[in-house]
């Protein structure tokens, strides 16, 4: 990804993130999260992770944040946060974040840096040898394209089959749990 696109999407993401904390109105905060996640999806796509970028948009900004906005509407919050804020949580939060940032910069300045490995057509064509010759993955790699979704599907259903099924059980348990939680309050 060109450098200016990286900084553009990073700026969108960080401004969106800051706005989440800064806005008083929960709906404004929820829409700032959407902005932040759109920038993040741009970064994912710039890192050649097309599938992850698309599900970031579909799942997070499409489903999760709409759920948040829906709950804010359902609760119909009358009063916003009181204007008189105690100083202690703000000071504690800023001190914690400053300590974290000092630590982060200290680590990053001492760790070895890496530039992005190239995904040239020659690299992709050479990688095609590791896949069945008549399959879609090998055909796309021969053409010099990165078949991101096919590769993820291949990894998911060969190496990560059991975790995927456990994840299905988890989603079922979450669905049942949410129904039980909502029903108990009805009577």
């Amino acid at each position, binding site marked *: *990804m060109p450098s200016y696109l*990286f900084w553009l999407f990073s700026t969108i*993401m*960080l401004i969106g*993130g*800051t706005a*989440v*904390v800064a806005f008083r109105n*929960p709906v404004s905060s929820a829409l700032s*999260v959407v902005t*932040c*996640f759109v920038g*993040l999806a741009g*970064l994912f796509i710039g*890192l*050649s*992770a097309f599938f*992850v970028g698309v599900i*970031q948009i579909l*799942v997070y900004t499409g*489903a*999760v944040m709409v*759920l*948040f906005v829906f*709950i*804010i509407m*359902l*609760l119909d*919050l009358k009063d916003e*946060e009181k204007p008189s804020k105690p100083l202690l*949580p*703000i000071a504690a*939060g800023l001190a*914690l974040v400053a300590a*974290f940032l000092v630590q*982060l910069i200290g680590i*990053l300045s001492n*760790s070895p*840096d*890496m530039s*992005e*490995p190239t995904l040239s057509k020659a*690299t*992709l064509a*050479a*990688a095609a*040898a590791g896949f069945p010759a008549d399959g879609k993955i090998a055909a796309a790699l021969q053409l010099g394209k*990165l078949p991101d979704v096919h*590769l*993820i599907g291949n*990894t*998911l259903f060969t190496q990560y089959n059991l975790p995927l099924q456990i*994840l299905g059980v988890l*989603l079922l348990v*979450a669905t049942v*749990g*949410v129904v039980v*939680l*909502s029903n108990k*309050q009805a009577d």
Partner: protein
Amino acid sequence: MATLNDYLLVSGLLFAIGLAGVVMRRNIIIVFMCLELMLSAANLTLVAFSRFHVTANGLPDYNGQMLVFFVITVAAAEVAVGLAIIVALYRARQTIHTDELTSLKG
């Protein structure tokens, strides 16, 4: 070209923003949104490592993106359960401000 440390720095900044929101805000819905920001910062780190890791065949390391896939799915389940708990909390206590929920303070 952006280097690995640039991605790690941006991801760390996003995590710090999320952490600041969790500590400073008192509206429990916004605290929950900031938790999502922190999870997403971790996802950015994972995808960056997946792309910058040179594997034997020259492709990105898809094990990292598998972990991102699982994190996003678990986060979606977590949001559903968490929001149901927030709605139940609001029905029981009529508030979602964390400084008014002091039953455990003794």
